[in-house]
């Protein structure tokens, strides 16, 4: 019986893994073969890098990569600052209306960002940030998920450490930076992973708010490049897609161990 459930579990896991990875495998397969070889699944056909060359020449990818990189960095830095300060306030500072304010933050978790697109669009325009990388990143900086995560992490720091630092003469900001932040390192790492991969892949909002190749991130660039009127075929689109996700995939493969450990230690599963 238990052997049966066990093998059933294994089969289920393998099946899910195959379904999950199939599109990626196909993209890689298509990217390194000519279009006809790819769609006809000729397994022995020769490999080629021509698709990558064609794709690379077809759009300002360097600029797109840079934009995406700047975008995820700005978002991450902004999120770290905002979630650290807000998380600390909700975890360790007493102020009137704290519970209500935290409730509002939690409510934000239940609202899909897409619902707010129109409002955000108006706000970003009013701030004069339309078609800028900062404008793409801005709405995500006060992340409710991040604030919640940091609050939990800071709450788990033993209060004696705070008190010991206070007796030593540490200021409040000093205690936050020297005691709370270092102790929440696994949470920061786990959160960074989630944030970077989300914003690397974010599409709808950047599509709306960017207007020029100077600000466009990879995802938007890729969709414009792959649009039917550009007449590119599946192999070239696949090559461009593989290029876009490669940095993220490589980073994950390299830091896989640390990431998994960070998630375990941060208590998010």
């Amino acid at each position, binding site marked *: 019986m238990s052997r049966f459930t066990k093998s059933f579990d294994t089969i289920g896991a393998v099946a899910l893994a195959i379904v999950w990875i199939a599109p990626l495998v196909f993209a890689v397969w298509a990217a390194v073969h000519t279009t006809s070889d790819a769609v006809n699944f000729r397994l022995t056909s020769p490999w080629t890098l021509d698709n990558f060359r064609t794709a690379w020449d077809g759009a300002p990818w360097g600029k797109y990569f840079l934009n995406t990189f700047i975008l995820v960095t700005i978002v991450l830095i902004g999120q770290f600052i905002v979630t650290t300060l807000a998380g600390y306030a909700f975890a360790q500072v007493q102020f009137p209306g704290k519970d209500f304010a935290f409730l509002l933050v939690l409510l934000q978790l239940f609202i899909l960002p897409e619902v707010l697109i129109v409002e955000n669009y108006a706000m970003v325009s009013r701030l004069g940030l339309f078609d800028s990388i900062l404008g793409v990143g801005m709405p995500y900086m006060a992340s409710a998920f991040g604030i919640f995560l940091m609050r939990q992490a800071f709450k788990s720091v*033993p209060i*004696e*450490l705070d*008190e*010991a*630092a*206070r*007796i*030593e*003469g*540490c200021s409040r900001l*000093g205690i936050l930076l*020297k*005691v709370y932040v*270092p*102790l929440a*390192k696994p949470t920061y790492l786990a959160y960074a992973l989630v944030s970077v991969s989300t914003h690397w892949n974010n599409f709808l909002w950047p599509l709306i708010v960017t207007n020029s190749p100077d600000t466009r991130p990879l995802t938007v660039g890729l969709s414009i490049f792959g649009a039917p009127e550009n007449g590119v075929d599946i192999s070239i689109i696949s090559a461009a897609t593989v290029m876009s996700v490669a940095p993220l995939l490589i980073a994950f493969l390299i830091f896989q161990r640390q990431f998994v450990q960070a998630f375990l230690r941060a208590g998010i599963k």
Partner: protein
Amino acid sequence: MTRAFVTLDNIGKRWNGQLGVEGITLDIEEGEFVALLGPSGCGKSTTLRLLAGLEVPDEGQIIIDGTDVTGASAAKRNLSMVFQSYALFPHLSVAENVMFGMKVRRVPKKERLEKLHNALDITGLLGLEDRKPGELSGGQRQRVALARAIVAGQKLCLMDEPLSNLDAKLRAAVRKDIKKLQNDLGITIVYVTHDQTEAMSMADKVVLMKDGVIQQTGTPEQLYSEPATTFVAEFVGAPPMALIEGRALKGFKDDQTIGVRAERMQLVQAGQGRLACTVTDCEFLGAETFIGLEHPSANGLTVKLDGKAEMTIGSGVEITFADQDLHVFGPDGRRVQPENIPTVLEEE
């Protein structure tokens, strides 16, 4: 009248109306070792934290070294503290933990390293500078906490049950170390403990508390030989003082309680004793044996005999004691001074 180094004047602190501590009045001289003693939950830690500035009193005044610090932050009080859990920063090495406060206060690097070396030398931690707290034994962690308090170089050091996480053998050793350290550095220590042996053996002055109120303040001898209340009598000393209801003894009022120490009782022949009891247990400790006795109107009767003594459990014995060795407590549990002995003030 000389001004005390630390003064707590009628301090009160309540938690949502519930009693924390009440009416705490205490003078501490410079260089003194003061133990706050009492059962768990009696308000020792609260008193210490009020003194440290980690809590704000609802009423009363705190003066440290001539300055009123009642509302001052912990940092402004010029004191160091050793926590029960040691409160070492787990992400910092031993050296960084010890130097934490000096870095905050921007002590120059050279001086910092000198003081670090000195403190690690005193506490026997040299060679462990780069270890993280997680890689140390309980005793070593305790020493790091001590070293951190030492380098702060403050005149007043507060300790909240610093030995309670150590095993018995280590505890005795560290007790000596702390006492020696205090002597060498000439610092004032306020030490919280629930262990009366610790308080009695280390302190110059013991403050015994119960339910947020000070029961008695005095030297260990005073607490031992002149307990102010039946609570003190039962808390201090091993074994604690036996308490006998007044009506069981001739010459005392019914509502009085009579206390007598184990070493002041003698076993006597049948018919010559003042109290007839039953033997309940026999505890041999090497140099002496404690015989536990039972009597319907007495509590904690124990007789101390030198060397090894054999008694049959359940057998009847009679005990006696001299009148001048008795402690008399009134119906409210407070000590009644016999008329012929001049009254001694509780606080010296």
